[in-house]
């Protein structure tokens, strides 16, 4: 079924998010503030979280166990998959803590299923990195599209020198560090500024994050007191969806205007056959009700057309003329 992206309901859109920060800064507790989380505690670090903020968890010893618990190994068996989905029904968010450790388990699994993905020293081969990158994408797609869950993946951050600057990046080896960002809707770096913890979603000198029109800039993470609910991400996701809805409405209006201008302009340009029709089209193109970059795009289309016809703009007469060979 073909659907118009502008008609897509966004109220309950699931979100894929990456959280990065130094060890011990509170990333796990923050990640568990997402709606109804299932804590995939790959790091076995649940003891470091205050008891009141802990959530139902699994502690997988290998990647096969993650695949099994989340139904990836039965994705092509509808009945078995339905049973896994039923078991996961109470959860809205899958929290992977940490992504770096999961990628390590994923790498070990890859080398186990095919030795060519590994090298003698136990690290991944180039092919292995490619395979793990694709498996990570499959994992994300399974949780997002098949299980219909939010995904929050926690990564440790490390410092990297860049000239005089110190930059933060996620602690993942090889090209995978770039690939893990690709499917994410949001990616934020947690830092402490004074006594305040913050999470930043906009690109800056310190890090390259991932925000959207709805969620960007630096957010203050509230300090958790005894009676404070741990719901920062739940609220952020609500904000994201509310803004997405407004954004979709705004984009729909702009896009409709853009499509109309492009259609009218393209029709005009198709009708250009000589200098007179070209001059006429140029005037009419300027008068169109443009949106987004329709004006520049149509100008380029017209430029290509007049070039094909051997026409040139005369600044004095303000019209196109045939260029004599």
């Amino acid at each position, binding site marked *: 079924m073909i659907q118009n992206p502008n008609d897509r309901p966004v109220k309950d859109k699931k979100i894929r998010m990456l959280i990065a920060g130094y060890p011990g800064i509170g990333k796990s507790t923050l990640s568990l503030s997402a709606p109804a989380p299932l804590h995939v505690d790959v790091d076995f670090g649940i003891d470091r979280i205050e008891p009141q903020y802990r959530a139902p968890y699994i502690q997988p010893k290998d990647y096969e166990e993650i695949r099994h618990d989340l139904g990836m190994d039965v994705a092509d068996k509808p009945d078995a998959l339905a049973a896994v989905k039923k078991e996961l029904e109470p959860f809205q968010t899958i929290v992977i803590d940490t992504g770096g450790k999961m990628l390590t388990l994923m790498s070990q699994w890859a080398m186990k299923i095919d030795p060519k993905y590994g090298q003698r020293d136990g690290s991944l081969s180039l092919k292995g990195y*490619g395979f793990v*990158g694709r498996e990570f994408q499959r994992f994300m797609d399974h949780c997002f599209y098949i299980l219909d869950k939010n995904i929050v993946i926690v990564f440790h951050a490390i410092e990297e020198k860049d*000239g005089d600057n110190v*930059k933060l*990046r996620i602690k993942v080896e090889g*090209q995978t*560090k*770039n*690939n893990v*960002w*690709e499917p994410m809707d949001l990616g934020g770096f947690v830092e402490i500024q004074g006594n305040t913890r913050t999470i930043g979603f*906009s*690109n800056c000198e310190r*890090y*390259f994050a991932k*925000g959207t*029109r709805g969620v*960007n800039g630096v957010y203050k993470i509230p300090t958790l007191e005894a009676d404070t609910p741990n719901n920062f991400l739940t609220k952020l996701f609500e904000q994201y969806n509310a803004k997405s809805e407004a954004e979709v409405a705004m984009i729909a209006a*702009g*896009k409709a205007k*853009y499509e109309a201008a492009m259609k009218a302009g393209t029709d005009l340009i198709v009708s250009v056959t000589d200098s007179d029709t070209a001059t006429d089209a140029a005037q009419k193109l300027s008068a169109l009700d*443009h949106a*987004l*970059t*329709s*004006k*520049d*795009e149509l100008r*380029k*289309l017209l*430029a290509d057309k007049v070039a094909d016809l051997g026409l040139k703009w005369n600044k004095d007469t303000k019209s196109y003329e045939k260029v004599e060979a």
Partner: protein
Amino acid sequence: MSLLVTQSLISSWNYLLRENPYSDATTEDTAMDEFITVLRRFPTPITEAIQNGIDFEEMVTRILGGFYVSDKDPWFSAAKKIAGILSGAQLQVKVSKHIEIEGNDVLLYGRLDALKAGTIYDIKFSKGYDRGKYIHSPQHPMYLDIVPDADEFSYLISDGINVWTETYRREEVQSIQYVVQLMFGWLKDHNLWETYETCWGSAK
């Protein structure tokens, strides 16, 4: 007189400052030589890396144009993925804008790899890639300045196998005009203003 400014001129100047911030015309170093070559508008040699970039972009253009490209080519899959993103876009769009800086009429000029529905695209072919690689590039601030109707700039980066995107929204990008102003000051301080005016100036 109108003074032309392109992103490649600013890039070359940025590179010089990053490589050796204490360079001047009397210093012997490669970055300064390269900048002087660009400043004098001498042709720059086409390195293997540059040629790879040209070939990859050409492959994307061929796929978009419906021309035959062998699916056995190791770059095919990545080029097809980028072509998918660029489907329906206008390619090689020349754009320009006049601005005034310190009383000079400055012509910002650029050629966009692709433009579609409010997004400017630039194809990069790079052996190595780290997320955020282009954060200091003058390309996105400059092109977003020249095309006021575009609201974002997306680098489509490939190593021939993988494809990554690095997107900058208008609201997170600083104005290029301040950078141009700084470059003008630097050219004057280093007695290169005259060379710049001679090589990049033109009748209005």
